[in-house]
């Protein structure tokens, strides 16, 4: 227990304290106390915070759009072996190093990449399109990185779903649309909430994806924090930004704990 307190809570506490201190020589925190870093975080970096929230929300929405049908498809296979193989196929990329996966995606979307090559060859565009180093690339990279997090809890929820409720809905005259929205969706909602938060929370704190795939228009909170801590940065300002990040993440955690699927798949 002492370990957690010493190497986990104490460092967080230090960052919390540092965020209220003045910037000294070499970017180190010194006395006196001040609130200027929080002010600056919201004034100067407000747009980045909103952009990060937007990216994370868009990533979550896209993951849900793709992940829900995928989870339903896997869960509705008859043979357990097929379900296992399909789940494995979704999870295996997740076990590959995150940097390697991001790089793999970069090779596809970069200017000389395969996607541009084919777009030009098929005559859809005249010249290669700049996709890498745009906000689109960042969202694509985040979806690529966190899609398995969405599929797993929804899969668990769909598998647990009692098919007799769906049958009852049909027997009572519901069409597919109504059966889905009135029965299947509400019953799998905890899985959806859990998956959404499992995507949203790490997407908020993402650093590698925007660093490698985003240009200046794709900067996220994680990049701000990093730039304040490397070299001759501004530790109090970086601390203040990470405190804001922490608060946003905790809101996500509360949502997850309150409405999300409880048991692990």
């Amino acid at each position: 227990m002492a370990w957690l307190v010493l190497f986990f809570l104490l460092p967080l506490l230090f960052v919390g304290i540092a965020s209220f201190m003045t910037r000294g020589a070499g970017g180190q925190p010194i006395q006196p106390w001040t609130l200027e870093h929080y002010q600056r975080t919201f004034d100067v970096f407000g747009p980045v915070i909103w952009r990060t929230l937007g990216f994370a929300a868009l990533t979550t929405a896209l993951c849900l759009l793709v992940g829900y049908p995928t989870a339903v498809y896997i869960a509705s296979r008859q043979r357990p072996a097929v379900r296992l193989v399909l789940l494995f196929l979704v999870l295996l990329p997740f076990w590959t190093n995150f940097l390697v996966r991001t790089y793999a995606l970069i090779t596809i979307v970069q200017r000389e990449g395969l996607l541009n090559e084919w777009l030009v060859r098929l005559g859809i565009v005249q010249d290669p399109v700049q996709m890498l180093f745009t906000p689109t690339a960042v969202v694509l990279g985040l979806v690529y990185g966190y899609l398995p997090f969405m599929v797993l809890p929804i899969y668990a929820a769909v598998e647990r779903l009692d098919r007799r409720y769906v049958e009852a809905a049909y027997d009572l005259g519901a069409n597919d649309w109504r059966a889905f929205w009135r029965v299947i969706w509400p019953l799998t909602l905890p899985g959806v909430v859990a998956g959404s938060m499992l995507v949203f929370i790490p997407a908020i704190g993402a650093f590698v994806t925007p660093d490698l795939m985003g240009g200046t228009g794709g900067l996220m909170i994680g990049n701000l924090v990093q730039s304040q801590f490397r070299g001759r940065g501004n530790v109090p300002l970086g601390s203040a930004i990470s405190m804001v990040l922490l608060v946003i993440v905790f809101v996500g955690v509360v949502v997850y704990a309150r409405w999300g699927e409880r048991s692990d798949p």
Partner: protein
Amino acid sequence: MTRAAAARERVPDGVPEDRRGALRRDLATRRLGRVLGWAVPLVALAFLWLPIAVLVGFSFNDAASVSTWRGFSLRWYENVFSSLSGSGSRFQTDLLLRSVMNSLWVASVSTVIATALGTMFALAVARGRFPGRKLFDALFYLPVVIPDITMGVSLAVFFRIVFEAWQQWTGLRLVSGFGTIIVAHVAFNVAYVAIVVRARLATMDPSLEEAARDLGANDWQAFWRITFPILFPGVLAGALLAFTLSLDDFVITFFTAGVGTTTLPLFVYGLLKQRVPPEINAVSTLMIVASIVLVGLSLVLQRRGARRGEG
């Protein structure tokens, strides 16, 4: 929609005129749903696998390109391995090898410590009777949900403060290195191990331990003869998870590493940030193969462990 109509997929003749429109719409919805039901998963799997497949495929490309194929070749693999035999390629193989060794070293040490501590924490929280147990229970999940970057910078700040205090106290100057990386990795892995072990602990029948005590076992015997063998699959799973997470971690290592302690993810990041060398496809492919082998191995081990634990 009647089920008979659904089975035939078209509007039956006997349906009155005013209901035909709605029925036709229902059938169209069903057809659309059916198509999307397999098309979207197909796209999802393609999206997940295509970049990896392209990466692996083009690691065998004769040209230094990831879009035009110019024939099969093993030259990038040769470059990666060539400086081993001393034929002197431009690729920094010695650095790569050192970073692999560093990664394995950090992962091994931090896994051993984290597994021991995590198991003890799980037992303490599940069995112990002390105030604030619920709070500690919640504390486990903190390192799991906190963004890597926050954890990385907070540890960086923490080490800097501790080192300064240490220097003032003893006059010795400490620097970041393996010690700080291992401490950082243990800090996040303890929580993961504890969560996995707790899950196993929750399925354990406490009466087994009581029976051991009734038969005259002391605490030590009861733990090693009863509790630990039953927990073992959970402990093993936790250790494997910790090892994988430690090998994989980039962000937290990035903020706690010192000079000469480059781990494999740090090395790959360095390659990606500079001019990307063509050998990186080969290196990435080797990493993908290694992780697939590792995952396959852990699944086999876990299955065996689980069987032994329950048998």
